[in-house]
């Protein structure tokens, strides 16, 4: 049995035992003992962000790009409340992070002490679980359990609130032999009979489609490999949610592109006309389904999800399978290989899909006078595709254009805030990804409005000499807001234009970055090359067509078949039912 140590040292020791290499954080009064313990060791690297919100998004970017849990350390009160957006973001997108928050000493809890807030109360419903640690003897076990919860089952954020006196008080710590929880037991293995039923349904279907999501990324690279194998064996088309991009290679002829509100015509039409949807680690959210009563009306639906509460939440399914999605797909692959169950070909289905593809729904009007934002993304992809870049985004039009026009071949390369839709996510996420992947090319595709929400993190990148690239599609509008105002409110652009933007080139230089401005289509490729050639952080201010819209688009409350395509875009006023939808 080891000797007694301070709570702060127990925390560090437990983090080391758990294989933690990096912590994103910001010091403050209620975490000084932990920072002092951190100072006296060299096993864990601390990355000092410029605002706690940045620490959480950095941890998310680290987690999403490495597959390892991200760790955050912030102080009490404002430190914890600044972290809340990122915690809620991680919950929505199922990102494994552990957030350690300082708290005022236990004797002061509830007295409205300096920098006190009810962190446990505030984060209770935006975490997978949270803990207030009152006894240093329990701290070690709680830290191990927190990592187990964050990374197992459906991953998510876990908060450990650690009062300052518990950081100083001493206790014994030993690494727990194994972690199990009496009540929490995620079901990771699929029911064999249901896998058999799923394979039979897939084999019998004449118009099947695989609808994949972020669960496949969470499940690990082997799940992506299994998905590719299943798609190949069954010769089925594959579409994906925003969060699932990269699980299936965009270069595959079986790839239909993203589905949903800004998905391709072919993927949404195929979902609508399918006779079987095999949903793998996605959750039928409103951005995907459109109007629920018109969603894929003639299909049987199989839903594989590790979270039982995702099943039948929005859409009734015929065959639910609660399981780790990777294991379920592997089981289907094994059974398919053993049985070779398909007796018919899918030529008619593929012919139909080819007709939808012929619409070329991602085409956009070319311009020689202005840079089209879609073209900027295409050019960026062309220039970087051989380097397998990690792309993060902020939230808005640029995010959707990136999802549509940047082709991903592998998982863990695409970092975006899908569920919560958090502007300001991309830069800190890129920083986290660069820390976790020092040799990778990491690019934040940004909008000029979003980037300003966590602009202070440029200073973090400068401090750690991180060569992240920020590629801003600058149209001076909160573009997605403006687009909705154009389509829904007769172009009344309430507060969506930014009157005063910084000079991003000078801003970059002020932070010790390199700044590049691209203003003309002819300069696009050279500007991108200059960005890539610079071995350090670069901010590109790419001035794009101000009023370009992101199409195709399924308006809120519309069916998959009611897509607005680029060719027939409409401005106007929508009725109140449509206005009430998100």
């Amino acid at each position, binding site marked *: 049995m080891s000797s007694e140590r301070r709570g702060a040292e127990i925390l560090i020791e437990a983090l080391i035992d758990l294989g933690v290499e990096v912590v994103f954080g910001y010091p403050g009064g209620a975490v000084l003992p932990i920072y002092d313990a951190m100072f006296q060791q060299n096993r864990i690297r601390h990355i000092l962000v410029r605002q706690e919100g940045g620490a959480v998004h950095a941890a998310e970017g680290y987690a999403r790009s490495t597959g390892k849990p991200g760790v955050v350390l912030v102080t009490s009160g404002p430190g914890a409340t600044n972290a809340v957006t990122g915690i809620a973001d991680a919950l929505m997108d199922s990102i494994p992070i552990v957030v350690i928050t300082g708290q005022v000493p236990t004797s002061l809890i509830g007295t409205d002490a300096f920098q006190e807030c009810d962190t446990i109360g505030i984060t*209770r*419903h935006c975490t997978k*679980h949270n803990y207030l640690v009152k006894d240093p003897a329990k701290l070690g076990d709680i830290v191990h359990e927190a990592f187990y919860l964050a990374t197992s089952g459906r991953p998510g954020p876990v908060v450990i609130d650690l009062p300052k006196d518990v950081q100083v008080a001493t206790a014994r710590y030993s690494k727990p032999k194994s972690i199990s*929880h009496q009540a*929490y037991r995620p079901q990771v293995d699929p029911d064999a009979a249901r896998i058999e039923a799923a394979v039979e349904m897939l084999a019998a279907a004449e118009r099947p489609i695989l609808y994949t999501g972020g669960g496949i990324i969470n499940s690990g690279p082997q799940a992506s490999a299994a998905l590719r194998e299943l798609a190949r064996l069954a010769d089925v088309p594959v579409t994906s949610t925003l969060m699932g991009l990269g699980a299936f290679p965009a270069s595959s002829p079986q790839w239909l592109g993203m589905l949903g509100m800004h998905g391709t015509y072919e993927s949404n039409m195929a979902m609508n006309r399918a006779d079987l949807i095999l949903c793998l680690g996605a959750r039928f959210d409103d951005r995907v389904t459109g109007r629920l009563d018109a969603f894929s009306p003639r299909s049987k639906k199989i839903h594989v999800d590790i979270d*039982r509460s995702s099943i039948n*939440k929005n859409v009734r399914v015929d065959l639910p399978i609660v399981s780790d999605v990777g294991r379920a797909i592997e089981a289907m692959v094994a059974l398919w290989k053993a049985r070779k169950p398909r007796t018919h070909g899918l030529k008619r289905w593929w012919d139909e899909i080819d007709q939808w593809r012929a619409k070329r729904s991602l085409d956009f009007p070319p311009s020689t006078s202005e840079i089209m934002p879609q073209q900027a993304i295409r050019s960026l992809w062309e220039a970087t595709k051989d380097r397998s870049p990690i792309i993060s985004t902020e939230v808005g039009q640029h995010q959707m254009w990136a999802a549509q026009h940047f082709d991903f071949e592998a998982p863990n390369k695409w970092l975006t805030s899908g569920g919560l839709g958090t502007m300001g996510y991309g830069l800190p996420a890129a920083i986290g990804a660069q820390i976790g992947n020092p040799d990778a090319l990491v690019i934040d595709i940004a909008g000029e409005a979003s980037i300003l929400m966590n602009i202070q993190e440029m200073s973090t990148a400068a401090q750690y000499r991180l060569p992240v690239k920020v590629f801003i599609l600058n149209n001076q509008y909160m573009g997605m807001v403006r687009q909705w105002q154009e389509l829904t409110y007769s172009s009344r652009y309430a507060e969506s234009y930014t009157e005063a933007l910084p000079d991003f080139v000078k801003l970059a230089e002020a932070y010790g970055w390199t700044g590049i401005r691209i203003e003309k289509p002819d300069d696009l490729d050279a500007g991108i090359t200059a960005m890539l050639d610079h071995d350090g952080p670069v901010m590109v201010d790419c001035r794009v067509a101000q009023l370009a819209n992101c199409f195709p688009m399924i308006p809120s409350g519309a069916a998959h078949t009611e897509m607005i395509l680029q060719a027939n875009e409409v401005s106007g006023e929508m009725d109140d039912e449509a206005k*009430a939808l998100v």
Partner: protein
Amino acid sequence: MRLKPELSERHTLSVLVDNEAGILARIAGLFSARGYNIESLTVADINEDESISRITIVTSGPPHVIEQIISQLERLVPVHKVTDLTALGPHIERELALIKVASTGEQRIEALRLADVYRARVVDATTSSFVFELTGGAEKIDKFIELMREVGLVEIARTGIVAIARGKEAA
């Protein structure tokens, strides 16, 4: 534009949870965050070392919402088990109420007579008041309270519903 209400049904759920700080806030907060109804909620620890509590929740909603409520409850880390007693079938629901009535003369006699009919016990009495203790289903208690309003009802305290499945098996 008008908002449309949905048809709902009443379900009694029995939830076994770790008896830890904040568990009630976790459960109650889940209901408010996701817009579920709570008609009644009771909680008490039920095992020897007081480490496990049973929470009995009476809720209402359309069937797909009830299914979601159960799944969402099961998703909470400290929740061991959720049983939908209504879906399970035969089960017993009981509630205890303390009812204070102040009256004199004929009304006082009538209150006592009605209490006898409903098998309510007198647990406190003064020359001008009674406190009745009544156990039973919620409907019986509602009915008794309604009658007491006519004979001098002063105040009511109710426990909320506790419930358990019939038969020898644990639900």
